[in-house]
């Protein structure tokens, strides 16, 4: 029998698995990174010393722009689909399946429900301008319905109010009153950390 001679080993490391692993991780982080979602309105959030972090999922965000327009956003596509279903039932808007799917995939929106159809069918670029604000007045409080349906679709939602520094207080007060009307007494105000330089 012929003896198998061990070949002289080069002192070189095979890096391939390392590269594989590194790129796998890169891909993973690239895909899971939540890039800041495009905001339909620019909101300059006030700062505070509070450093309580908002949870990443199950957040209901009520954005109030500096002119007092109210926008609404919930994460979780499944819940969004259920919410639009319920809202359709209540307001009889007759959304098509396609419109509902578009809605589930979108982010923040803010307009009277009668204009939601136009918004969903609009082009991506023009959608921004259609955010005229959800009515919150006592006679026609659509925000109330959005919130209550969202909570029914997913009871785990935490409510965050994201207001602009220059938002007039009466609007904020209306939003808070809307929350209190459905017995929500615990919510979060989104702020930036005081020491940190302001972004946005």
């Amino acid at each position, binding site marked *: 029998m012929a003896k198998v001679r061990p070949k002289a080993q080069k002192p*070189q490391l095979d890096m391939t698995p*390392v590269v594989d692993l590194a790129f796998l991780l890169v891909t993973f982080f690239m895909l899971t990174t*939540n890039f800041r979602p495009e905001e339909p309105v620019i909101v300059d959030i*006030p700062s505070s*010393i509070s450093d309580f972090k908002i949870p990443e999922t199950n957040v209901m965000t009520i954005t109030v722009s500096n002119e007092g327009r109210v926008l609404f956003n919930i994460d979780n596509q499944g819940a969004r689909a259920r919410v639009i279903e319920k809202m359709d039932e209540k307001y009889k808007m007759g959304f098509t399946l396609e419109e509902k799917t578009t809605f589930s995939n979108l982010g923040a929106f803010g307009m009277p429900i009668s204009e939601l159809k136009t918004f969903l069918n609009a082009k991506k670029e023009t959608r921004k301008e259609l955010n005229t604000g959800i009515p919150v007045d006592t006679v026609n409080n659509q925000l109330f319905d959005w919130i209550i349906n969202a909570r029914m679709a997913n009871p785990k939602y935490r409510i965050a109010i994201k207001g602009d*520094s220059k938002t007039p207080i009466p609007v904020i007060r209306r939003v808070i009153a809307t929350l209190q009307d459905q017995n929500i007494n615990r*919510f979060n105000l989104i702020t*930036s*950390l005081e020491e940190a330089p302001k972004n946005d």
Partner: protein
Amino acid sequence: MAEIQDAGGGGGKGKKVRSKKASTHVDMTAMVDLAFLLLTFFLLTTTFNKPQTMEIVLPDKTENDDKPTEIKESKALTLLLSKDNRVFWYAGINDPKVEVTNFGPNGVRKLLQKRVATIPGLVVLIKSDDDAVYKNFVDILDEMNINKVPTYAIVDITDKEIELIKNAKTEPKK
């Protein structure tokens, strides 16, 4: 290309340059470096981009309707938020004498510090008129946390207080 072919030059006449046998092994070190650089980048950017929040808990509205919370007059301090980041304040409940301050370090913070130190069980009532902005609201809640005010409440403003602000505003500013 970075390599320059030497053939055309006059110097390389004597020796023939033998091409080395190319190894099939690719040096991956640079690639690994890059991959880990990217990895580090994504790792760091994910954790830092999270907004902070301030949690507020309001009393239950329905419960409060039947028995309003009573507070001692001596312990009460009312802050009225108004236009141009001004804070009007008065102590007690009856016959209030309104004074004005602001959000500066010598303004409302000093006032609260003094009150918290001297009055145990201080109750601060926060009210705002329609001219105040959201920032004032957040700032004042922030001040409550900074100065560790034991109890504070967000209350609706009364007509009487709007009147007070109006009268105070007409006074000449120093």
